[in-house]
């Protein structure tokens, strides 16, 4: 009899947490795509926050205080490109040829609006080879 109280209480708590976790998940999980993958799935992904990775192509329009316009190239095929616009301040390591991961949304205009940029650098503990 006493055991039942514990079990029921435990189950209720468990359900509550699972529910919360599910909600948090929806809000917190972000998918990552290569440029080609993103363009392939473009119709389903408009205005969803995603991450895209690619190499910065030559021809970056950058001036401190103004939005930066640049293009990233798919690293798996070397040709597919994606125009990106970013409003914040660029990380110091951002440069042409660098592999970056942009997080933001792909808009109907065909431009990816980035909310954040991460430059992929070699592991912090291993020196750059």
């Amino acid at each position, binding site marked *: 009899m006493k055991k039942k109280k514990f079990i029921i209480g435990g189950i209720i708590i468990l359900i509550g*947490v699972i529910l919360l976790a599910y909600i948090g998940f929806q809000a917190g999980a972000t998918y990552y795509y290569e440029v080609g993958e993103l363009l392939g799935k473009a119709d389903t992904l408009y205005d969803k926050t995603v991450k895209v990775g690619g190499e910065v192509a030559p021809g970056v329009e950058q001036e401190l205080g103004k939005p930066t316009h640049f293009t990233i190239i798919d690293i798996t095929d070397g040709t597919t490109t994606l125009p990106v616009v970013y409003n914040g*301040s660029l990380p110091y390591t951002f440069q042409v040829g660098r592999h970056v991961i942009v997080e933001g949304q792909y808009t109907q205009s065909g431009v990816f609006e980035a909310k954040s940029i991460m430059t992929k650098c070699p592991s912090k503990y291993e020196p750059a080879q």
Partner: protein
Amino acid sequence: MAEFGYTVLILAFVASLFSIASSAAGARQKRTDLINAGRNSLLAVFILVTLAEVILLIGLVTHDFSIKYVAEYTSRALPVPYLISGLWAGNAGSLLFWAWLLSLCAAVFVLRKSSTTREIMPHASAVVMFVQMFFLIMLIFAMNPFATLPTPPADGRGLNPLLENPAMVIHPPLLLAGYVVFTIPFALAVAALMSRKLGDEWLNRARGWAVLAWLLLGIGNIIGAWWAYVELGWGGYWAWDPVENAGLMPWLVGTAFLHSITIQKRRGMFKRWSMMLIILSFTLTIFGTFLTRSNLLQSVHTFGENTLVPFFLALLLISFFGSLALLTYREKELQGKESTESFISKEGAFLLNNLFLLLSTLVIFIGTLFPAIAEALTGTQVEVGKSFFNMANLPIFMAIIVLAGVCVITSWHQLILKDFKRSVIIPAIVTLIIIIALLISGRREWSSVVSFAISGFVITATLYQWLKELLARRRAAADNPKSGTSLGFMWLNKNRYGAYLVHISIVLIAIGVIGSSVYSVEKEAVLSPGESISLNQYRVTYDKLNLAGSESRMIITADMSIYDGYKLIAKLTPQKFIDANFEQPVTEVAIRSTPVEDIYIALDNWDSTRKASFRVLVNPLVMWIWIGGGVFFIGGLICFWPQRTRLEEPQAGKTKRSPQETRPPGKPE
């Protein structure tokens, strides 16, 4: 030198094998000579691994760049403290450091004489040496810290400048020590299972070690959070990064274990549960270091190689499933003498607390591993962000804090309503006052209002109970002039008052976390020299930019002035270091801290016209996290301090007492 170091490791490995065999055989056949041989070879392992560690240290301090590890993590210009920290800066070094810490714990463990655990010592030391052996195998066969370079370079690469911070000297060793020390209570538990000595002997001895491990891990995590806050420049202190989670999970389960064994010692209940918890804690420590040293997950912390994966997997599987099997096998003999009478009691609160801690651990575990599982099963790459962990954990952590307050005012066996009502009135009034004050001042975010109210409740309830106990004792002592001081009384009840202090510290940390998470304000701005931005009531002016340093290391400093109205309240100097050897520049954040709030400025970027981009934040209440950390350390230390004498239970009012109550908290032998 390096070859000698490697040979020493091989010798240590052989000695550990011998120790396992002797101890195991000696335990089985009850032969003292074999047991002694096992013990002595364990001490030999300690001496040998210490020797290896010293050799590496000498190599680091004397700039012996023929050793690959020394060349990779140090340079001639590096100050001595950072040369020493090279011992744990890289994968191989920190693995050796772990092996050394483990051999040290093992040596201290076997050298302390104890009559109650004499019979299970050989089993326990065999288990410890088994784990030790695994680490030595990894060092010898997969991650040799003494690997040499055919042509030693003139100068080493140097330490990643991101790590040049005093925290580098304390955070990794504390964390590593916390992990390692969990091995001892685990070994004692397994030894008790193997030898069927399933009374409280193993527990009394394990408790001290478990508190130490928990204390080190806790303070290590807090220092890590502090370091992230002042170093990484994003304004936060905990990113739910896989490696951060790896350090948090064993601590959560360790907390559950410490609470569970308190019940076991008092009421003889939850024996199997306690066993399960310490097995889980230890497994999570191994899992944690496995995550850090493998490529499984992306993190700012990982060493990112895969060579050690098979070894760690083997150790994980053997230790976890082996001990579980043992536990199931001995299950019948672990039945407790009593069972819970009522859920609404201290026991009930403790059980709920355990439940919530484990739920949180489960949530964190799933969130941490989800990307790896998703990629393995479906090929998609997904990242689980902070909001998942925050949203899922907030209610759980709040529930745990509520329980911390509730348990102080409930009774053992069953809640005595009269006592409860008396104890809860003042905290409830204070809580109401807090809620009203918050609402009046305009705060409408219900989650934070509730959280602050709960925090107020718990602190008040704990302090009030503490005061009641001291006053009751004063009254009792008034009749007996020999009974000593209040301080002395508290010192005799270290567990209780240490625990009160720890509970208060957790609430202080919670207050800091809530304040800075919910009410933090952030602005990004691009400014030319002379321009300013305002944030809340402050005006932040960018005065000028200074460039200094040399080719190999550039230092860019921005001079900022902070005004509150017309008063200049601070001058801050955020910086960026650019080291030629390392691509990623290092941000030195500038912070002005008061107990009310932090003003936090990070310099992001700049151009040739000296226009610069900044991130400015006002973070309320952050200081309380570090204050809470300090209180946590003191409280934990008090809990850890050995109790030497049998003592009387502190009474608060006329609480009914069961005949079995006055058992001593036990000596951590």
